[in-house]
């Protein structure tokens, strides 16, 4: 890749990571607000049953975006002692391996979500009837929403993570 393209990729990588971590922080703030509201209403004798589930789901989605940003900033827990002694090419190979792993995960997501099957069937309920894939039919316990709305966060988070891994593997810097 030409140096300008690499520089552009590195800048985009940093911006994306910043946006992801801000989104994760906002979601965590939301989760904490949910818990606060739940606790306050419980103590007033009027419990809100949906707060705990929404807080947990917000936290899980926050973790996905935070984990993606963590690849860009190298903040995931790793055993760095041996890796630090490896030649640079091998370290980049590890990043390429991570990108391959994430691409594989994306493939799993594609097969699991089966968007073509969904289009053919016309609805999540029809897909469940025809193929036994209940992904789009699974409800949340207390929110009155389908779980898929939260699971869908895995797509942008995995795409972001894949981009971060590819940029690291390419050694792009500005």
């Amino acid at each position, binding site marked *: 890749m030409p140096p300008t393209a690499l520089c552009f990729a590195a800048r985009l990588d940093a911006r994306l990571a910043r946006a992801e971590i801000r989104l994760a922080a906002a979601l965590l703030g939301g989760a904490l607000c949910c818990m606060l509201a739940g606790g306050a209403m419980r103590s007033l004798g009027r419990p809100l049953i949906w707060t705990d589930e929404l807080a947990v789901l917000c*936290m899980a989605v926050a973790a*996905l975006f935070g984990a993606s940003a963590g690849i860009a900033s190298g903040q995931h827990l790793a055993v760095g002692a041996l890796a630090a002694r*490896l030649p640079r090419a091998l370290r980049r190979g590890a990043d390429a391996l991570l990108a391959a792993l994430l691409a594989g995960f994306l493939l799993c997501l594609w097969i699991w979500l089966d968007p073509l099957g969904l289009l053919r069937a016309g609805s999540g309920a029809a897909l469940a009837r025809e193929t036994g894939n209940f992904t789009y039919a699974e409800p949340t316990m207390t929110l009155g929403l389908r779980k898929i709305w939260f699971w869908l966060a895995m797509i942008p988070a995995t795409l972001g993570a894949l981009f971060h891994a590819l940029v690291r593997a390419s050694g792009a810097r500005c």
Partner: protein
Amino acid sequence: MLSLAAFAALMALGLPIAFAMIAGAAVQIVLGGNGVLLLSLPQQLFQGMENTGLLALPIFILLGELMAESGAGRRLFALAGLGAGGMRGGLAQAVIVANGLMAAVLGSTVAQITLMARLAVPEMERAGYPRDAAAALTAAGGLLAPVIPPSMLLIVYGVIAQVPIADLFLAGIGPGLAILAVLIAVTALTGRRAGFPAPAPRAASARAAVTGALPALAIPAAMIGAILGGIATPAEAGIVAILAVLFVALGALWPALIATARSTAAILFLIAAAGLYAWVAAWENLPAMVAQQIQALSGSPLVFLLLLNLLLLALGMVLDPMPALILVVPVLLPVAMDSYGIDPVHFGLVACLNLTLGLLTPPVGVGLHTAAMQTGVPAGRIARLVLPYLGGVLAVLAALVLWPGLALGPARLLQ
């Protein structure tokens, strides 16, 4: 076995541990001929983070960040320093006591060492302490964070082992105080041998130090009291404490949330990946196979605990405490409980205390490297100087293994 080899190889290559675990799980699925499980992989990964107990994690991380920003560390250090004046090595003892107080506020070794290295090391140098001794003392003080409640490690163990976090916090008090006593004793001995200086009594007003530190002490004390007294769940108590700290550190909320998002994501994703690995392992009946192997090696709970400690010490030298705990607990806790009748709270305290030692041992020792980075003293030098402290904590660990009452006693008394 091949999945474990893949996991270890990828980890050695420097791949984040969570991703190495996911790869190991995928290898196990493919080798086991259960390819269809790959389709459930994303759902399983997501479900691994859907646990109400895990909400305590971001809450306590945020609380620690806010407490650090609010100047709690400086005030607690000033309070601990009141008793230091005039006594040989008194300032060193004050640093240990301040670490004990700080452990009840922060709950994270890295945060504690970072803060104390900034506060205590320059002060000790001014008082005539060698920089390397000050750095080693600060690093050793960090050993208190994972045991004295609230502790991130105990929260994560509670979630994996399905043990009430309040019980773990209660059980952490005995070993935590024992470690504090041991660190004070080791500092006294080292100080006498190394000739630690005796600074002149400080003119600072005791009243100002006490009143300044009161809010910093009252918040964690009230929070831990509410949890132990059964008035609030850990998450609820943490939320109330956050609200209280926000009165003095509102401006720090957004940066603290960003830092919390970073730490929480790394830990939660690791827990989710470990959950995935445990799911695949259960599918392949791995825990039962491991139980069979261990039972063939040892018949008594004591031998089992000794073997467990050797394994954890070895793991702690190459892995952070959190991933090591997440790897070991789902496989060995059922064996410990079902085959040897070991109390899960006792098991948790032994595991957490043992893995804490790894924070100060090369090559990985996060606490060691944090202290080295913050003070500019080579990690190898700090590692040599903390050896007496590690020996002392190892003695507490041995006492905890032989005498479960050290952890369970205070819990039973207070319950």
